[in-house]
């Protein structure tokens, strides 16, 4: 479960930049077994929101509960219950696929049989045994994507956060990510993911929040959005919402 309550993030002014209000008092809720899509253009505040939920960044004001833990009060508990995947979460090139996944398992407090079992299960499920002892620097993009997925799942977190996970991937790799996100929903996990690709949001999301300028301007199921805007295509709805704002 994710419950964001008036989350805000302000990056203070520096010598070179002005103050930036990246996220502006946003609230939303995402339930287990549900995929919540944050749909927005570049710079809309998607990444900042997801980084706050993953406790990589601290909110300037407001808070959120993730898997029952407060992101401000218990950030380490939150991270124990979250799997975070984005295109900017790279892999350690000099570790093998197995070493990397085991390392993240250990960072999540796992050891011995439990860790071994989890790694073996994941490697079999994701068909990774063919390259388990190959260093990450020698892996193809698709293989790396699988290692990243295994890394986020090794501790079997109830909440999954995906920040534009398909950016830069080819069609096949993007499809496997989409399939993986669906599987997470089927296994009852709470899933939130950000994208600017309308087709992805249409196919995957149970609820969609359109974010722009740090504000959630519109929210609902795809059907609710279609009914509210009398439009079928999500892109048309998005343009109407964001365009009105601009």
């Amino acid at each position, binding site marked *: 479960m994710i419950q964001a309550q008036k989350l805000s993030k302000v990056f203070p002014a520096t010598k070179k930049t002005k103050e930036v209000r990246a996220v502006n008092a946003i609230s939303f809720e995402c339930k287990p077994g549900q995929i919540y899509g944050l749909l927005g253009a570049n710079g809309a505040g998607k990444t900042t929101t997801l980084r706050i939920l993953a406790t990589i960044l601290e909110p300037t004001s407001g808070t959120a509960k993730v898997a029952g833990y407060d992101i401000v009060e218990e950030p380490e508990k939150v991270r124990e219950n979250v799997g975070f995947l984005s295109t900017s979460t790279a892999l350690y090139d000099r570790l093998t696929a197995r070493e990397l996944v085991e390392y993240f398992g250990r960072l999540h*407090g796992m050891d011995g049989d439990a860790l071994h079992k989890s790694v073996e299960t994941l490697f079999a499920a994701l068909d990774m045994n063919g390259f388990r002892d190959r260093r990450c620097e020698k892996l193809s993009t698709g293989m790396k994507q699988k290692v990243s997925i295994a890394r986020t799942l090794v501790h079997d977190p109830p909440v999954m956060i995906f920040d534009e996970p398909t950016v830069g991937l080819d069609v096949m790799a993007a499809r496997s990510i989409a399939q993986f996100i669906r599987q997470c929903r089927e296994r009852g996990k709470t899933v939130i993911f950000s994208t600017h690709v309308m087709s992805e949001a249409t196919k995957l999301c149970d609820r969609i929040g359109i974010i722009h300028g740090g504000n959630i301007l519109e929210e609902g199921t795809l059907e609710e959005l279609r009914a509210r805007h009398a439009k079928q295509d999500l892109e048309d709805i998005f343009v109407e919402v964001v365009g009105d704002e601009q």
Partner: protein
Amino acid sequence: MSLRNIGVVYRKEMVDSLRDRRTVISMFVIPILLFPALSVGLVLLGATMMNKTKEEIPRVMIIGGQESPRIVEALKKSEKIQIVSESPDFETQITDRKIRAAIVLPPGFDAAANRGEAGKVFVDYYEGDIKSELTQKTIVNEVLEDYRVDLAKSLLSARGVPSGLLQPFDVGEKNIAPPEKVGGSGFGGMIPYFVIILAFTGAMYPAMDLTAGEKERGTMETILTSPVSRTDLVLGKFLTVVTASLATAILALFSMGISFVLAKNTIDRLLSKNDPTFHFALDPRGVLAVFVMILPLSVLFSAAMLAVSLFAKSFREAQTYISPMTFVVIMPAIIALLPGVELNTRTALVPILSTTLVGKELMAGNHPWGFIALIFASSCVYASLAIAAAVTMFNRESVLFRS
């Protein structure tokens, strides 16, 4: 803070670092191969060059010798110099290093010397040319001195005065310092300096790679998604950097020690030509004591470089910040080697300078316990402050996500 988590991070960072060619070169190749080759090689080269210089019989010109055949004959007999024919361009020849020096006799030297009124004999040489300087010293202290004594003896005995009065007593010298102490205060005094530089350079690459390098490769965000606290993460990284720093210093000491043991006979043979009593030796306890004093300094280097390179966005930017720090390390170490810079309460509080100074004392077999305690304690305080700075930096998102 969790020791388990720090250990997990440390183990991973060590594996990662040891698979990195650049870290392996700075941690193993430089201290094991390059550094001993440079240090032992320099000693051997220096000793060989010095011996060659000493072995050369310098060419010397006598100016104004036509009227004084007696002194000219005596100087020609000396085996320490080789007399060449007089020429008016003798100064040019010294400058061009065709001859090493010239002995300029006053007019009518022989006759005047018999009356004890010969005046001054000048030895012209070229300051800055080591061979010319050595020749000048040989002529003044040995060749002309011998001739002066011989002449004085013959003049005194001609007047019926016993020549023994010229030298009513003899002076001898006896060294009571054992070879380790002599070696310690000479070349050994340089050892703390070498170890400090290596402790610094050994920490340099991993410190940049584990912070700015991680940011650049995009793994920083990955690791921040783990439940391990940022303090545990930075401490795991810090221990890796300290290990690299100490490993570099230890390996350098070992390989330098082995190189000197292997080269000992050659060094002894070369250096004992100047001083027959010379035996090259270093006190291993002194070396060990120096290493203990360098521990907190290594911690200080590691934490400071970690904090500085954490601020950088990329490896290249980190290099820009860290490179000037090399001078900050080299300068106090060089100042400590200057004559007159001594260990006192004030210098004992200056990091790096204090460790180099106390290292010199330890290598010479002295143990100023009060200063040792003060330096160790102050270095520990500086190291703790640097660790606190690194932890603070790692907890600031403006630093971690600086763009």
